[in-house]
């Protein structure tokens, strides 16, 4: 994996990723309402595996890399908006 992206890179990218999530899933909230550190699964935003696959598709098209779930990364990558954004920032080719 590449070096960890700078915090400001992540902060700048987060609104964009939040927007993608809301749009891809047709959620009934605004992107700003997704808290940076709240869990995306379960008790936070309440996403499930269907949502995760849909988000993965949008992210792969937009940022030019494929998500993988080796070593249980799946849980870690989707732990929060910040974790997902950090993963995108470190893996993106577009």
């Amino acid at each position, binding site marked *: 994996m590449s070096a960890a992206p700078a915090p400001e890179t992540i902060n700048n990218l987060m609104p964009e990723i939040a927007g993608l999530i809301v749009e891809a899933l047709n959620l*009934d909230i605004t992107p700003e309402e997704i808290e940076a550190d709240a869990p995306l699964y*379960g*008790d936070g935003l*309440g996403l499930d595996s269907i949502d995760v*696959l*849909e988000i*993965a598709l949008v992210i792969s098209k937009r940022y030019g890399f*494929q998500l993988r779930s080796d070593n249980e990364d799946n849980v870690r990558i989707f732990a929060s908006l910040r974790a997902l954004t950090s993963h995108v920032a470190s893996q993106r080719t577009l």
Partner: protein
Amino acid sequence: MKHLPLFSGRKLDEIFAWLPAGAVSVGRFLAEAQWLAGQLPAGEWLLNVCENRYRFALGFVAGLLAGKTSLQPSSLSAETLHRMAADYPGALCLCDGEFAAESLPCLRFPELPERLPDITGDIPKIATERVVAILFTSGSTGLPQPHRKTWGKLVQNAQAGAAALGLVGHPHNIIGTVPVQHSFGFESTFLLALHGGCAFWAGKPFFPQDIASALAAVPRPRLLVTTPFHLSALLAADIPLPAIDKLLSATAPLSAETASAAEARCAAPVHEIYGSTESGQIACRRTTQGPVWHLLPGIELAQEAGNRDQTWAFGGHVEGRIPLSDLIELSTDGKFLLLGRHADLINIAGRRTSLAYLNHQISAVPGVVDAAFFLPDETPDESKGEGITRLAAFVVAPTLDQRQLLAALRKRIDPIFLPRPLLLLPSLPRNSTGKLPRSALQALFESTVQHG
């Protein structure tokens, strides 16, 4: 009493499964399962929730050899686990990964010894009448409904599936995206290794890139066992894929468009299985060759005279006489058409339940006065392929907010059935007889959600 061997037509040096480290032979698998059987504490029931397909297989066969019955619920919600603990005293949970077994005693999957004694003597035989697995559906009363599977019927089931898919004499390496504990994954990955000559990949690839990597990890010929939802995500990702020689889809109807796209992309046939947890797999078709289903060997369907709404499956590997939850048009020579589902039944991304069950669960949440789940009529967005329509719920619960309600529901039902949206209302539009007609809910949905 009649007995059948653990494996059908397999030699000990054939490949049983593929792990990241390489192939595992039938003999090695049996040696490991015999060792694991010796590690299991006494007790009648085994709730084997291992995510890894190979570890599940070892746990299942170890339990089989140790005289245990495998419990395979449709969900692992806290509510279900409490139910299992109450209904199956002493049930042991065998798990890998980060599983929270709640009230059940739990055995973490142990490290396997590197050296094990060679297999000597005959392949173990199991009594055909013995109940070796209980698969559960969610049931309409809120209680998981058990469906008992005997060893003899499971063997027959796997052999019928292998024959229908043309795997007899042509063993494939199986990559499954579906959980091995549920009916489809159980029959079409694990049982095909025991009794269909195939070998399976131990993982359960999720993202399209994971599927590509898993395919690359095993030699041809390869069989991809998947669902319409995973298959359309794989096609939409449009990434380079290793050769696939056969595809098998089940859990929800596959559209002819997706099937054609998959056949064109993979240059391989796409087959579909039709069945249920109650009946097991009962029919198959090649989706691009039309809507007609062909019954598996030995299976029969019947309808009562004058009532074509209810169809029964029996014969072959079906346990008893099973009512099917689909509307069916029977044809001759073991052929039939599916016309749709009974109105109460829900299938979301291949997970099945009923509105009655969901309504029962939400009404049981303390503070809920009245509630109704609703599956909207809208057609999913075409651009997404096998798009997923979500459930809505209308709830009267003056003391609760949305977050509290969702947290309570999450403990009771599978996340896929959580309502999106969940709307809190002062009352529901019940008619004078206290019924909630679907039309009233549709109107409520349109006024509050679509134009709200």
